């Protein structure tokens, strides 16, 4: 499946774009997604393995299975307030 991944703040700087497209095998997990994104290029290799994966606006665990229609984002540590 093809997933458009959204990037924010410092992760967007690493990605060089607000969204990047990745191809994942069916049943891929959040951890698989992060690994795939980190393999895209040298800048994204600097993305932390512990990057927060957000699926449909909820932070998910590393074993969460991604579905083709999900809205997926990678979020750096938050600094609101």
């Amino acid at each position, binding site marked *: 499946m093809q997933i458009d991944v959204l990037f924010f703040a410092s992760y967007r*700087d690493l990605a060089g774009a607000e969204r990047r497209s990745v191809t994942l095998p069916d049943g891929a997990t959040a951890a698989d997604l992060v690994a795939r994104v980190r393999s895209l290029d040298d800048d994204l290799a600097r993305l932390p393995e512990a990057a927060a994966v957000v699926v449909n606006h909820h*932070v998910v665990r590393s074993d969460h299975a991604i579905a083709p229609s999900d809205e997926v984002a990678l979020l*750096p540590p938050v600094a609101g*307030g």
Partner: protein
Amino acid sequence: MSATVAMARIIDAPIHPEPLLDAVAADGHGAALLFLGTVRDHADGRPVSGMRYEAYVEMAEKVMDEIAREAAGRLEAGAVAVVHRIGTLDLREASVGIAVATPHRAPAYEVNRWIIEEIKKRLPVWKHEHYADGDAAWVEGTPLEADA
């Protein structure tokens, strides 16, 4: 009895105290507490000239609403209003505004404080600090935890 959520929003315009306080006002309230988080001229000793706030807006709107509802659930009575601003802010401008009004004062202090701590832990917002020397950097934040 339980408290109401009067407002929970991400906005890209200045935050004013009066509308927040008006939103939580009611005849039964004896205390109102307004917190404003403002842009400070220094960070870890380094001179700061301004700040740009960015959010994952669709998610942030939901998280703000969740935090406000959980805050209201901590009150027996009262009202809660919360806004976070995004965009470029000058020194002294408010990035966050939290108003809590209650019949008696103790829970207003407690829940107001609880809200700002939760915002810092959970709201998908990031700040890009602009330094007086022309440099800029993303402020290090708090790693998000997976939803229960």
